[in-house]
């Protein structure tokens, strides 16, 4: 496998059918992989917070589940993908520490996952598979051609969903 396209934290990118795209070390963040089932154009968003509307400084749309998913879909559509043919797989949303009692951040991983699901539902994009929650970090690799979403975690064998 050649070089993978790398998506940073609070970032999103498109991926051509024959390539692969990755984001490293997802913790409470969620990696949302979307592909057009027919054209096989793909994309990956690494979202960090559930809701852009509750944050004053919300210029980076890729940071939030609501605006990040919407922007990824918009960019894919602009590149010729059709929303009606899009499907998604999601991973991440872990709770890295057993307490995170900063009130606004309680269960941020779980809330990220919920927010991503809500947005995808709103956009009519079905979720084919997910590997979310628990308490460990995940590196993900997405291959639009096959739709394989490979999840790697420390001390665990890689898993394809």
């Amino acid at each position, binding site marked *: 496998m050649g070089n993978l396209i790398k998506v940073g934290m609070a970032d999103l990118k498109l991926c051509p059918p024959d390539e692969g795209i990755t984001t490293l070390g997802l913790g*409470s963040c969620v990696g949302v992989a979307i592909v057009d089932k027919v054209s096989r154009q793909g994309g990956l968003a690494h979202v960090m917070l559930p809701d852009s509307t509750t944050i004053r400084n919300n210029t980076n749309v890729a940071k939030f589940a609501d605006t990040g998913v919407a922007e990824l879909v918009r960019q894919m559509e602009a590149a010729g993908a059709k929303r009606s043919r899009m499907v998604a797989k999601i991973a991440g949303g872990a709770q890295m520490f057993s*307490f995170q009692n900063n009130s606004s951040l309680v269960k941020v991983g779980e809330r990220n996952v919920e927010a991503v699901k809500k947005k995808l539902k709103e956009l009519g994009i079905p979720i084919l598979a997910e590997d979310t929650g628990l308490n460990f970090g995940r590196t993900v690799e997405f291959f639009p051609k096959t739709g394989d979403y490979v999840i790697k975690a420390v001390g665990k064998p890689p898993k394809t969903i």
Partner: protein
Amino acid sequence: MADFDLEHVDDVYFDVLREIGNIGAGNAATSLAQMLSSKVDMKVPKVELLDFNQIGDAMGGEEQIMAGIYLVVEGDISGSIMFLLEEASAHVLVSKLMGGMETGEPGQFSEMELSALKEIGNIITGAYLNSLSSLTGLTITESIPDLTIDMAGAILSVPATEFGMLGDKLLMIQTAFTDDVELNGYFILVPDLPSYGKLLKALGVMQ
């Protein structure tokens, strides 16, 4: 009180943070030395305001395995503090603390080692917060520590999320302790928004 904005941090604030980092890390090194009964030196800490996409690289990649110790900060300011240690450094420290006992498989920590690591994190963050407290005159207490060993990116997502509510950057203080070997540690202090103002005021940076 003026709104604090991480996108527009000025040099004075940086200098203040570097100085706090310096004193805090100095205290931490002293505590470490007492704990290990050996001499521990430290380098001048590096204070950096990093973009989210740079933070993994700053620690040798998002997939670099780190020990992350996380505490909630309470008192006059509130927020959290995190201390990260490279896995190899964590092993060296723990093994020293436990009298050079070889324990567990490489890359794995036993229950006892994990609890020793928590204690190390507790002492180091405690030393750091004590300096901050005495410099500012603010009462700062910390919760019991929680520890995780995982990829740097995943651990950093926790403070990054807290910073993420303020902007797209994360403020990090990197400290290298030198014993027989160099130990790389990173502090990340995340005061919540109202606490920034209190800290800067107490330090005389902000009116």
